[in-house]
């Protein structure tokens, strides 16, 4: 092999940096959606590299459901401050109040779907024309179909049957006023690529990604953290377990994995041998129908 070749992580990184710079060049008001999860942390690392030694030329935006893990919020604030980045937080609870929306009910009442309202309002409030997200195509079958530059109409809706051709590495981000583009710079990364990258770059993560003791209940084979956001029934048995999280979502719809892995090395080794997908193991909101994600995306979700 000649020395002028890149390994797979270097190739993915170069591609993502190219996408970030394209966003900065083509749009007037981009924003990076930041949740404090590993995918959005990876996005920020890539953005930092894309614009070094300058600052990241757009704000970080967090749509806060109010059901987040406190560890993720603490990380979010500290991380943004260290980066010197502008952090914009908008709360789903405020949207619910202002718009008189109905809170979902049930044992694991999730505000996941309601995020879309807050997101669309935030896009309008700041006039964002591009929103950068950390979705990956390996996550889910509707995402596997989505373009890197995904054009959304005035209502934030995705039309999977009418996607723009996306040829070579040429991105067409032209839109009309009111429309916006969702951009996914790590589309071609897999979960394991993200973990390997975090390991090779030595990026600090929120503590919930590593083994810790937590009170959980077992529900249909999944471990859900005890929190004020879920309903504990009499039949539920609260147990203490050593767990870690594979994704960071809402406390209402993210399940933990039993694990003793305390270092990045150990976490990556566990991910490498797992036989269950990230979403399958940890998200209880995707299981409703076979097309749950497709439907949410059509409605303006990421």
């Amino acid at each position, binding site marked *: 092999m000649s020395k*002028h*070749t*890149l*390994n*797979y992580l*270097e*190739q*993915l*990184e*170069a*591609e993502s*940096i*190219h996408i970030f*710079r*394209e966003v*900065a*060049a083509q749009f007037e008001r981009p924003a990076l959606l930041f949740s404090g999860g590993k995918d959005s942390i990876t996005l920020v690392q890539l953005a*930092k*590299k*894309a*614009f*070094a*030694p*300058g*600052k990241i030329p757009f704000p970080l935006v967090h749509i806060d459901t109010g059901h987040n893990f406190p560890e993720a919020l603490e990380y979010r604030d500290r991380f943004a401050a260290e980066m010197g980045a502008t952090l914009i937080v908008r709360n789903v609870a405020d949207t619910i109040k202002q718009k008189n929306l109905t809170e979902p009910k049930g044992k694991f009442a999730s505000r996941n779907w309601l995020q879309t309202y807050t997101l669309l309002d935030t896009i309008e409030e700041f006039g964002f024309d591009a929103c950068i997200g950390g979705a990956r*195509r*390996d996550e889910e*079958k*509707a995402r*596997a*179909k989505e373009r890197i530059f995904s*054009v959304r109409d005035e209502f934030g809706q995705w039309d*999977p*049957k009418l*996607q*723009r*051709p*996306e*040829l*070579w*590495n*040429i991105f*067409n981000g*032209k*839109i*009309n006023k009111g429309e916006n583009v969702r951009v996914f710079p790590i*589309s*071609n990364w*897999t979960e*394991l*690529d993200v973990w390997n990258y975090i390991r090779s770059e030595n990026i600090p993560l929120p503590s919930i990604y590593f083994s810790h003791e937590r009170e959980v209940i077992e529900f249909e084979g999944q471990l859900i953290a005890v929190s004020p956001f879920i309903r504990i029934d009499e039949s539920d048995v609260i147990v203490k377990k050593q767990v870690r999280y594979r994704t960071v979502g809402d406390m209402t719809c993210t399940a933990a994995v039993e694990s003793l892995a305390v270092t990045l090395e150990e976490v990556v080794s566990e991910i490498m041998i*797992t*036989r*269950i*997908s990230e979403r*399958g*193991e940890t998200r209880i909101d995707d299981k409703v129908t*076979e*097309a749950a994600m*497709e439907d949410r995306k059509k409605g303006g979700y990421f």
Partner: protein
Amino acid sequence: MDILRFITAGSVDDGKSTLIGRLLYDSKSILADHLEAIEKSTKNKENGEIDLALLTDGLRAEREQGITIDVAYRYFSTDKRKFIIADAPGHVQYTRNMITGASNVDLAIVLIDARHGVVEQTRRHSIISSLLGIPHVVVAINKIDLVNYSEDVYDNIVIEYSKLAKQLGIENVTYIPLSALNGDNIVDRSLKTPWYEGKALLEFLEGIEIKDAVNLTDTRFQVQYVIRPQTEALHDYRGYAGKITSGIYKKGDKVKVLPAGIETTIDKIEIAGVEVEEAFAPQSVTLLLIEDIDISRGDSIVKTTEDIAATNEADVLFCWMGDKPLQNGNKYLLQHNNRRVRAVIKNLEYKIDVNSLEHIEDVQQVKLNEIVKASIKTAAPIVFDPYKKNRSNGAAILIDETSNATVAAVLFQ
């Protein structure tokens, strides 16, 4: 470990989805919960076996109709390589989506049903593969079990396809007899085809060296974004960020900025803010130049020794992708990597019949999915290479400014 990107083209009837399902399944890339979901879907149907094809169709409309509408990307890796599959539709109506998938790959797998041999779709997919300059084609002669693993059937298809490949100028072709349904010659060589001496498909994909996947000869770089931190410490910093399209750049290289034609020298090359001595395609870098020159997005920086000029006219082949036909004389926006200029298509020379490969002259109207030879005139000069010489600097798209739609894939001749 590197990445191999490949496309699979064919209709559901060719067994394309089953082939991908088989590759994922046999390389143990399908996770337990995904498999469970498929088993659930399969049970709603008649026969009991797991339908591997269900792994690949993602949209509701696709599952309902049993066809692939848009390209889906699949990922798997073995100890040797990471693979990205562009799982593309085969139906003529969705050709533009197939081209989307085909534009970025190193290899194409063209599926042929052993019972039917080379058919219209085989021709269309091969033409697209050849037009897009995909460096390697694998002809997967599928359903070999349904012709009793016959060597004669295989030989005849090889002879038939070789003629087509020759006609299209496809040089690197590999033929593999296989059964996606039964797993013959997918991961391991099948005992049922003792006459076949080549590799099984996965073994082949793991081992193939793609020649010329990246052009390291011609130095091409387009400014994508200008980094100007404007802080006190970095007051005079002005970095030209972009992806090296092709070639290798070194600190101290004498370069010229096109289309202006101004010569200068590379002062520094940075990757992610860290200085390096040299950089090569397809790295995303930042170039700093010795002189302060007026340079903006879309300008090219090439070595002074390069024999390339900026021009306003070019011969092109283009595939029309707009739902509305091409309006003769209309102006479109041409986007060549990062550079956007107004352009008009002139002199429609001929259409290519994607079945017979014949040139049809006297072109009156250009409709969706038609491939046409023409010339293009641009309002400002562009710095391109012929696509055949340099894929990454030889392609562009056309944008309809009234709808913002991407309406054509353009290949410079």
